[in-house]
């Protein structure tokens, strides 16, 4: 199926102190099943907005266009329905949840998604076993499970916690919004392995990054350049290397 994730003419705006501010301006993007694509683009081009719109954040108003996901109208679904359907967003800035225990949160999420998918819920023992294996893989201490969600986590710990959630929720389509920023090289490897080991015919991802470095570890099938709310260029992995060497100027001029 080629329109596994198909974004067509997507326009979205936000209310900026009473004035509508268009951010996505007719964005087209297709990510076939089993592929990993990357988006690169200058700050402010709307990358995070795209990820929020796909995850269902309702501060952004979609004014035009459509998103088909796995045969469904993604934009008609609530955020939790999207998660159950297999969409996952690793946030650029994960929020802190004071008073919410990380392990409880994760178990509630996993079981909510399992329930919605018609799977059995995990009991405490099964959950703990699974989550321990995952924290180990991501080099996270079990102590992080006992803390409140993201509270007092370093930037790197927050990003790992996102990847942990992604792995526990077994998505079909993951969006990683600058998951590499703030990571040292070791952490980057661990996170990349966390993504790569999910790769297969039933897992697709959209990796948003500023750095070629991440794409050395997570090799994308295609790279898209985004500017001013649109995809202005698409190509193979070589695009990332060109961008790293030459910057965005060439593409921005061509698109202007």
């Amino acid at each position, binding site marked *: 199926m080629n329109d596994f994730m198909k974004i067509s003419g997507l326009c979205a705006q936000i209310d900026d102190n009473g004035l509508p501010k268009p951010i996505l301006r007719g964005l087209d993007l297709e990510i076939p099943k089993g592929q990993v694509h990357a988006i690169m683009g200058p700050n402010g081009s709307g990358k995070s907005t795209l990820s929020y719109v796909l*995850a*269902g954040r*309702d501060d952004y108003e979609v004014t035009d266009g459509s998103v088909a996901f796995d045969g469904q109208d993604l934009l008609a679904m609530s955020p*939790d329905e999207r998660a159950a359907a297999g969409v996952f*967003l690793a946030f650029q800035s994960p929020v802190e*949840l004071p008073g919410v225990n990380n392990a409880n949160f994760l178990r509630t*999420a996993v079981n909510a998604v399992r329930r919605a998918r018609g799977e059995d819920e995990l009991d405490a023992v099964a959950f703990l076993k699974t989550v321990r294996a995952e924290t180990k893989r991501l080099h996270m201490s079990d102590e992080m499970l006992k803390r409140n969600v993201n509270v007092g986590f370093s930037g790197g710990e927050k990003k790992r916690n996102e990847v942990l959630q992604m792995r526990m929720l077994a998505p079909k389509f993951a969006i990683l919004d600058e998951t590499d920023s703030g990571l040292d090289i070791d952490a980057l490897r661990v996170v990349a392995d966390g993504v790569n080991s999910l790769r297969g015919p039933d897992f697709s991802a959209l990796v948003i990054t500023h750095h070629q470095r991440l794409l050395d570890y997570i090799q994308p099938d295609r790279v898209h350049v985004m500017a001013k709310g649109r995809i202005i260029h698409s190509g193979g992995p070589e695009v990332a290397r060109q961008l790293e060497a030459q910057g965005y100027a060439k593409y921005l001029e061509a698109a202007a």
Partner: protein
Amino acid sequence: MSSGAIAKKTETRALQSFLKRAGKSAALPVLKSEGLPHRGIEAWHYTSLRVLEDLDFAEATPLGEVDAQELLRNLVPDLTDGPRVVFVNGFFMPSLSSLPAGVTVVEREAVSAETHPLTVLNAALGRGGVRFHVPEGVDAGNLAIVSLSSAEHPISTHLRHEIALAPGARLTLLEIHAGQGTYLSNPVLRFDVSKAASVRHVKLQADSDTSFHLAFVEGNVAEEGTYDSFTLTLGGRLARHEVRCAMRGLHGNVHVNAAQILDGERHADLTSRITHAAPHCNSRQTVKNVITDAAHAVFQGKIEVERIAQKTDGYQMNQALLLSDRAQIDSKPELEIYADDVKCSHGATIGALDDEQLFYLRSRGIPEIEAKAILVRAFLGDALDLIVDEGLRSWLDARVDAWWAKQVN
């Protein structure tokens, strides 16, 4: 205040019904001259008794044993075995109770002069209540005082409990209020905490949707003594939990923590006055309000530090989470400090659920209502976690969860 306003107050049906029943009580003249509290009194500015003024509150009648047992089972199905005193419609129910040594129940007792409107009403109409003296050095464990009401027409009950702890004594008191129908519950609870004694007072107010709850708690804490309390307000059409607690010896501790969780058109008021009357005492107060629909919460918290009370350490925090546009809170923190070497901090916040947090939870597959429940529970956490007794804490937790489940349906 015009005399016209007072005259009008004495004309209310509710007051007339109380006066008629008060008989020859020593408190009758005061009740007659002062009437019921009204908004013209500063301390009652935010809480109006208007909703009950037109009701005729009759003397309650006792319930048969079988009915009482069923009422208890229905209203407090989660009550664990253990020492307890059960009242139904203000009447002591020996067959439902299990009294530990030292606990007596008095039927009717002359009370000394009262001045506070809620204690005056209680004294005028009271039928007695629990007397518990915990002897020196004794840990009395847990005691539950359960006050249930079942009213077919409006009734009122006015229990008065007096708890005294001798030096070094300890007690955990669980106070439970629940009922059905329209009634007024007007309990008065007095604690006398001697040197190095400690009382933990946990209260669940789960009265009926059409009831009125006007409670007054008074505590006196001696040197090194502790009065540690938590009140969970879940019920009542209109409720006020008023506390006055004074630390009268060195190194005393008073904790007046609470959560008020309100839906529908409920009105709940937590009013407290914590007095530091000796040096080196600690007071702590965390009050959380979760308010939805068109409910209205009131917090009035006063901390008084007398001139002598140097090295006072006082902390007060009042927070409200408004879950609807029509939800309201009036918050009035007050510090009155006459000593110069003290540490007192207080704060108040009012807010809604955080959209970003809600979205984060939902993006992980958690349905909206469950996500909200998680955030509300997290909000209440700082307060509920202050309940020292783990069993009681999870017992109240379950009540909060049940409240939430009711909102969803």
